Every structure is written in structure tokens, then in C-alpha cells.
């Protein structure tokens, strides 16, 4: 006998099969009952016969002998009909539908031993089948003959039907409707596969721009070659001439094909990217579920927990219709549950205590869910209980040796509250000491941060405690900034970066062995990314370098790096079984170029940075005085917004930026001081970009100045006009992103 694991799996498969076969059977029988012509009846009988036969085989395979026997009789009944080409009468069809119900019942009944056949309805049905098989004539006879017996069967089937209304079978019938039940893991798998398309899209983008580059390089080359030919023509003899004509023709043909390839690649890329984006966003929205699906168990839990602990509690939710990725919802279940438990167990006071404090004896626990941003959901969880006792927290931190008494004195209210997130604070004895706040809060924070979210706490003695969680709506794709440090690339989630700055070497001041810069009027520590990641210092001699401002309040730090490579959509990949938790690293991602890079964990970075900077390690040599020349970029742009944007972007990338409000202004500035590169808008008052370019080219000292035109005029004609005027690059604003511009500048400057 088959047993155990195999049998369970077989049974699962069997049920699925039965559901389908029964569906076919019942629809066949219904059609038969409705009446049909002879040919159709024959086909229906044939189909039913086959279904019953297969069902019999399947039942035998899983050892449900009752089902098998029943199907056996059913099958012989059908074979009699088949053999004699009978058309069963309406009454008989009704009887058959009844049998089907009995069959469903037998299948649902797990043990399936022969004994279940001795139950009333089944026995009658079997006897009936035998009777029909014995005297086939009865099958076609209209009701009269069996009047006495048909009702009895029908009655049973009616009873069966009523029983069946509740359990599994109805779902089988409903599954033919508009909605489909699919295993959620299957859906998740599909989504992951769809997300894999993103990297195809990214590499397609890289390839498209590569082809474009190649195309423009080739056209440049062929122009150069043609000029050369013209020069040569005068002196060359006949055969050389022929050769050059041939060559020219070949090159033209090649250029044409290359151009075609470039535009079709570009088109293919746009095509793919719009399709992938649509597919992904629609898929993602299908994965979104309202919070209510998670929270519906909470009111009951709160009720039972509060009655267990002898407390009175009113539970309030708002915004439960806000939708979020179901995977995030699943992962949030435990943290939210934990916080509510804490609120009931340790936050709320007993009714007597509450009355003594002059509060309503019934405490409040609330969930407020709001969508603050397109991508971010804010969940506030709190109570109006006794709050967190800071003095006890302090005592505990001291006892655990987490902080020295001097350090504790320096901490302000919110910094003290943050202590409850430390895992050292979550030992079991705290439950009694400080009312358990802290048990597992480290885990809560870990979980929320691993989702790319954040959690903050506020609490006031006797007023209550409130946690605010900020959670991304979708899980795997987010905006990341590609950075480089010590020759390696990393991705920093944009959500973890408050601001991007360009820091000059002379802005850094050593204060008490720490390097600091002034940000918003306050000194904050600045640390190199390579120190945070322990990459060993590879000193690039630079005067300026980009830095991120990360963290909030007292935990604000600046993290400096060697290079900034722009922003892009990042799809996180899990780190695999071996790397379960790595400090500072939360996953990996494939860049568009196909390079695998680590994704950094912003909260960890801040913690490490603060740890490193307050440690004994002296950082004064990290930012060494450099000798690398800073390139100056002249930006001519009439729109203040665009101008500021460009200035910020360029400064962040380490350039010295001079701005001009129009072409004329730019020309004047250029005359007084020559920049290393000119970035200009095309449409400007007084003097447009084309004229500016032409003017600049006319002047001898700036004849070879690299010029980049940034414009919304995307037509071929304008592009050519730009080239004619002598611009080195022509960037269309619609395709304008920082990376693109920075790359071009880097190449030209």
C-alpha cells in the first residue's frame, strides 16, 4: 500500500483531477437533460463514459476503493447506453445528476473504504445502476416506469446537494467564473520573472546607446574620410580615384545601414521598455492588497488579549483600505502584532490604575494608515498608556554596559527612546523592569528596515507611546544612486539619502579627532564610504568630492565617496543562503551594464558611520589634500529651475560651476574667464545656443572648447543645426538624465 508523503501528494493531485472531471460530467449531464439531437447525445455519452472511466482509474491509484466501485458501476451503465446507442430519458438524466452528487460525496470522504458504499444513497444508486444495466429498456423509458423509484433517488440527491452547498465542491463550480484562484507563490514567481525583464530592458538600453554612439562615431569618421578624399582628389591619379569612389560608396552604404540599425535598436528599446514597464506596474498592482486583509484579525486579538490581562481596551483602525504589496503585508504581520501585544501587555494600565491617573478606564490602541507618498505608506501604531519610563531605560542601558553614564547624560529625549531598538535592550528581564517595551523591538526594526522602511518612536510618560512606520508600497524595485568608492561600485537606496552635496576639502574641519562639515549651521561628522565599508583607503587626490547627507536629527552624517554615477531603477536580489545578514549590505543588483553590485543598507551605514566616527579611529587622513584639478563648467540656461538643477547636479559630480542667464551673458563670462566646458540651453533670450556656439567657435582661444547643447528641440534638423554651429554634443531634454549628461561632460572635459 502506498503511504505517507506520496499518498498525501497523490490525494492532492487526485482532488484537483476530480474537480475537473466532475465539472465536465455535470455539464455533460445537464446538456443531456436539456435534450439534444442523437449525434450530440452520442458524443455526450462518450465523453461522460471516458470521464467516469478515468475517474475510476484515478480512484484506484489513490486507493479509494469506494469511489472506484461506484465509478465501475457508473461506467458499465454508460457502456450499456453506448452499446445500445440509447438516448437516456429526462428522468434518467435527473437520476444521473443525483449519482454525480453521491460520487462527489464519496470523493470528499477521505478514507474511501468500501463501507461508505453501504450508506443509503450510494446503495440505492448502485442497485439502480445494476437494474438499468440489466434492462437497458428502462433507460429510454419516460418517467412512468420508474416513478416509484426515481423520487427516492432524487430525494437522496437533494439531501446530498444541501449538504454540499457548504464544503469544497461549490468552489470547484465557482472557479469557472470570472475570478481564478491561483497559488500566491505561483504569482510571486511570475512577478519575479517579470522583474527579471527589467534587467533585459536595462541591458537593451545600454546596447541601444552603444549602437548610437557607434553610429555617431562612424559618421564622424566617414566625414573625416570624405574630407581627406577631397583633399586627395586633386593630386591622385585615375586608379586611386576609382578606389576612393568605391570606398566612398561602401562607406555610405555602411553608414546608412548603421543608422538604420541605430534607430531600430532605439525603437526596439523604447518598445520593450514601455511594455515591460506596463506589464510590471500592472502586475504589481495585482499584487497589492488592502491593509484590511492583514488587520481583520487584530480586533479579535486585541479583545481576547485585553480580557486575558484584565484590561479594557478600545481598538481603532483607520485607512485600512490603503493598498500595499502582499509580500510586504505578510512580512509586516509579525512586527505589527508584536507592537500591539506590547501596547496591551505593557503600555496600557489596568482600569484601576487608569482611573487613579484620571484617565478613562478604557484604553485606546490605534492603527492609522495613510499613503503619504506615491510609494510610501505610513503606519502609526500607538496607545494612550503609561508610556516608556526613560529613567528605567537609562538604568538598563547602564546595567547592560551599552553606554557609559556620561554618554547617557548627553542623549536627548528621542535619542534615549531609540535605545529600545537596541537588541541588548530586549532581554526577557526587561519585561518586568520597563514593562517589556523593547522585547523584540530590535526585530521589528530589522524587519521594517529590511523592507526598505523606517520606524521611529515617540513616547511621553503617562500619555502613551506611538510608533511610526514608513513602508514602501512595492517591494523589489526602487530608485538607487550608483556610487563608486575605492574603485568599486555600490548602490545606495535613494530613500536613505537626504541630500547630495559637493564637499570641498577646505570645508572639512577636524573637531576632537573627528572630521566634520557644517550642514544647516551645525557640524556633522563626515566619513568616507570606504571607511564605512572597510575597503581600505585608496586615496584619490581630490579637492572636492560628492557626499550624501544621511539620517535625521542627531544621527545626521555625511558620507563621502569618490564618484557619483547617477540614479537608476534598482531591482534587489536576495543574497542567497550563506549571507544571511551582512552589515551595511542588504542585497545585490545587476546594473544595466550587467555588472553585479552590492546594495548598501542605509540605516546600517549611518550606524556604522556614527560608530566609526565616535571611535578612536582618527579620520584626518581620509580626505587628503588633493592636487587634482577641478574642472569648471559654464552653464548657460535662462530658466532658473533648470539652471539650479544643472548647477546642483554638476556640483554634486565634483565640478566647479559658473552660471549664465542667457547666451550673451555666457559669452561675456566666457571672454573674461575660459571654462573647461560649456553646457548651454538652445532657446534663450538675447542669444540662442546655436548663435552662442557659433560665436564661441569664432573666438580663437575658445575654438576648441567642448560645447554641449541641452535642449528640448529634438528634431533631426535642429540636431544638424547644432552640429553645424560646432557643438560637440547635443542632448535632448526628454532623454536627459544626470548620468547621460555627466557621462558626456566627463568624456569631453
Amino acid at each position, binding site marked *: 500500500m*502506498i503511504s505517507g*508523503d*506520496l499518498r498525501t*501528494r497523490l490525494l492532492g493531485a487526485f482532488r484537483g483531477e476530480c474537480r475537473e472531471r466532475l465539472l465536465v460530467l455535470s455539464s455533460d449531464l445537464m446538456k443531456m437533460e436539456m435534450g439534444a439531437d442523437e449525434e450530440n447525445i452520442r458524443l455526450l455519452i462518450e465523453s461522460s463514459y471516458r470521464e467516469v*472511466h478515468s475517474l475510476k*482509474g484515478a480512484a484506484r491509484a489513490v486507493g479509494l476503493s469506494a469511489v472506484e466501485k461506484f465509478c465501475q458501476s457508473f461506467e458499465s451503465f454508460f457502456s450499456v447506453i453506448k452499446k445500445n446507442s440509447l438516448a437516456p430519458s429526462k428522468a434518467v438524466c435527473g437520476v444521473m445528476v443525483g449519482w454525480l452528487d453521491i460520487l462527489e460525496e464519496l470523493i470528499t470522504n477521505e478514507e474511501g473504504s468500501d463501507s461508505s458504499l453501504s450508506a443509503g444513497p450510494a446503495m440505492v444508486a448502485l442497485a439502480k445502476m445494476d437494474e438499468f444495466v440489466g434492462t437497458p429498456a428502462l433507460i429510454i423509458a419516460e418517467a412512468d416506469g420508474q416513478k416509484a423509484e426515481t423520487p427516492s433517488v432524487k430525494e437522496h440527491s437533494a439531501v446530498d446537494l444541501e449538504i454540499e452547498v457548504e464544503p469544497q465542491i461549490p468552489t470547484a463550480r465557482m472557479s469557472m467564473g470570472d475570478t481564478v484562484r491561483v497559488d500566491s507563490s505561483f504569482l510571486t514567481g511570475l512577478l519575479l520573472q517579470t522583474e*527579471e525583464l527589467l*534587467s533585459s530592458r536595462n541591458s537593451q538600453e545600454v546596447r541601444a546607446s552603444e549602437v548610437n554612439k557607434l553610429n555617431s562615431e562612424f559618421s564622424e569618421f566617414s566625414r573625416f574620410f570624405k574630407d581627406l578624399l577631397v583633399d586627395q582628389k586633386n593630386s591622385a591619379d585615375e586608379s586611386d580615384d576609382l578606389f576612393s569612389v568605391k570606398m566612398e560608396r561602401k562607406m555610405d552604404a555602411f553608414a546608412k545601414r548603421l543608422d538604420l540599425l541605430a534607430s531600430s535598436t532605439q525603437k526596439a528599446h523604447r518598445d520593450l521598455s514601455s511594455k515591460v514597464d506596463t506589464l510590471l506596474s500592472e502586475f504589481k498592482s495585482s499584487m497589492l492588497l488592502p491593509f484590511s486583509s492583514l488587520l481583520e484579525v487584530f480586533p479579535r486579538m486585541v479583545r481576547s488579549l485585553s480580557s486575558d490581562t484584565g484590561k479594557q481596551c478600545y481598538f481603532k483602525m483607520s485607512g485600512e483600505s490603503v493598498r500595499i504589496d502582499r509580500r510586504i503585508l505578510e512580512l509586516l504581520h509579525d512586527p505589527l502584532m508584536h507592537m500591539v501585544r506590547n501596547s496591551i501587555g505593557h503600555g496600557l494600565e489596568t482600569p484601576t490604575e487608569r482611573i487613579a491617573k484620571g484617565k478613562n478606564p478604557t484604553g485606546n490602541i490605534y492603527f492609522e494608515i495613510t499613503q503619504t507618498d506615491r510609494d510610501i505608506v505610513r503606519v502609526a501604531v500607538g496607545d494612550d498608556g503609561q508610556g516608556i519610563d526613560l529613567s528605567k531605560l537609562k538604568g538598563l542601558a547602564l546595567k547592560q554596559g551599552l553606554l557609559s553614564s556620561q554618554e547617557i547624560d548627553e542623549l536627548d529625549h528621542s535619542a534615549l527612546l531609540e535605545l529600545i531598538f537596541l537588541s541588548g535592550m530586549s532581554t526577557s528581564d526587561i519585561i518586568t523592569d520597563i514593562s517589556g517595551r523593547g522585547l523584540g523591538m530590535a526585530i521589528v526594526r530589522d524587519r521594517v528596515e529590511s523592507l526598505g522602511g523606517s520606524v521611529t518612536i515617540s513616547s511621553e510618560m503617562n500619555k502613551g507611546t506611538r510608533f511610526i512606520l514608513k513602508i514602501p508600497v512595492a517591494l523589489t524595485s526602487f530608485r538607487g544612486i550608483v556610487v563608486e568608492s575605492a574603485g*568599486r561600485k555600490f548602490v545606495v537606496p535613494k530613500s536613505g539619502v537626504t541630500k547630495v552635496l559637493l564637499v570641498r576639502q577646505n570645508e572639512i574641519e577636524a573637531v576632537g579627532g573627528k572630521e566634520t562639515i557644517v550642514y544647516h549651521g551645525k557640524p556633522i561628522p563626515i566619513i568616507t564610504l570606504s571607511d564605512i*565599508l*572597510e*575597503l581600505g583607503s585608496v586615496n584619490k587626490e581630490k579637492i572636492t568630492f560628492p557626499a550624501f547627507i544621511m539620517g535625521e536629527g542627531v544621527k545626521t552624517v555625511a558620507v563621502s565617496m569618490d564618484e557619483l554615477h547617477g540614479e537608476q531603477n534598482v531591482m534587489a*536580489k*536576495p*543574497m*542567497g*543562503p*550563506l*549571507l*544571511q*545578514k*551582512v*552589515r*551595511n*549590505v542588504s*542585497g*545585490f543588483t*545587476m546594473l544595466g551594464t550587467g*555588472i*553585479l*553590485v*552590492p546594495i548598501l543598507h542605509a540605516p546600517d551605514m549611518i550606524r556604522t558611520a556614527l560608530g566609526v566616527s565616535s571611535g578612536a579611529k582618527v579620520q584626518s587622513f581620509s580626505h587628503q589634500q588633493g592636487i587634482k584639478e577641478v574642472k569648471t563648467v559654464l552653464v548657460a540656461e535662462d530658466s532658473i529651475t533648470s539652471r539650479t538643477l544643472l548647477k546642483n547636479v554638476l556640483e554634486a559630480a565634483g565640478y566647479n560651476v559658473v552660471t549664465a542667464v542667457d547666451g550673451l551673458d555666457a559669452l561675456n563670462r566666457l571672454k573674461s574667464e575660459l571654462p573647461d566646458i560649456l553646457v548651454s540651453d538652445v532657446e534663450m533670450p538675447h542669444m540662442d545656443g546655436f548663435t552662442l556656439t557659433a560665436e564661441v567657435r569664432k573666438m580663437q582661444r575658445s575654438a576648441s572648447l567642448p560645447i554641449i547643447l541641452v535642449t528640448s528641440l529634438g528634431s533631426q534638423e535642429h540636431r544638424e543645426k547644432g552640429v553645424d554651429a560646432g557643438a560637440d554634443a547635443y542632448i535632448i531634454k526628454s532623454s536627459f538624465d544626470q548620468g547621460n549628461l555627466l557621462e558626456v561632460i566627463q568624456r569631453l572635459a
Partner: protein
Amino acid sequence: MKDNKTVKFIDYKSDHELLKNRAKKLALKVTSDLTDVAQDESSRDYVQFSVGGDGFAIETSIVKEVLETDEIVDVPCTPDFIRGVVSLRGHICSVIDLRIFLGLLGETSASNNMILFLSTGEVEFGILVDEITDVFPVSKDEIKHLPTGGASSDRYSLGITEGRVTILDGEKLLADPLLIVS
């Protein structure tokens, strides 16, 4: 009617039995299947490779594939023995420097990034090897046990062959919690 024939065919007692056994075997989970097979036979196939000048061999049954890659991505803030990660058809896979993990003396040749991927289904990682030298069958009694000196490389050693090749206990290595970074 074809159906009927098949049914009859299966009805022959011996065939029925045979097919049932086959079905059972197919339905078994892969891992248990592997150990079953392995236990039946006294001799198993081993992949021989060299790391830092020393010869090692590991059972073929847990070797998933061999890959030569140009780039192993460093992972900051991990122990030394984690050489980095590679993307194995889109999945991130850690690569371990056995030389450091086992505390061997030799140097891994820097030029060759040959990776042997090991897997038991749950845990999976690659080990950096200098070269794959051979695949050969070893029977149990060919493996000579050595007195263990307590060196970390001995922990995973099943013994040594006559050719001075250390036979590694791949399953023990794969199951070692020391390798997990958390």
C-alpha cells in the same frame, strides 16, 4: 479502445508491481534519492581539484556545476573566507575561498577564477579552485583515515586516498553553520 489495452497491459501482475515501484521511486524527494543510491554502491564518483597546491576531492553528487568566471564581486563587511558573490543565471551565489576557510598555507592562483558549485538543495555556494584535475571513482575502503591533528581542514576530511588526495565531506561542509554570515 486503446485505453483498454493499456489497462490490460498494466494488469499483468509483475508489470503492475514494476511500474508501481518505479512510480514510487520517481515520487521520492531528490535528496533522499541521492543518499539511497549512494548507500547502495560501495564506490562513488569524486571530483578532484586543487586549491593552493593541495589536492582535494568531493562527491560528484553534490557538485552542481563548474564555472569559469571573470568577475567575483566583493562583499564588504564579510569574513575573509567569503571571496564574494557571482550571479549564477540571475541568482546570487556566494563564493568561498576554501584556502582561507580551511586555513591552508598555499596561495590561490589569482588568475584563475574557476568555481565549483556545490548544492544540497537548501544550501548552495561555490568554492574557488585552482583547477579541476580529475573525476574518479573511490570505494569506501580506498579512503584511508588519518589521525586528526585538529586542524580545521581535518574537520571536513573523510580521509585520504593513495594518491594523497584529501576526500572532503561535502555534506558536512554544506551544512556547516560556520559558513553562514549573520
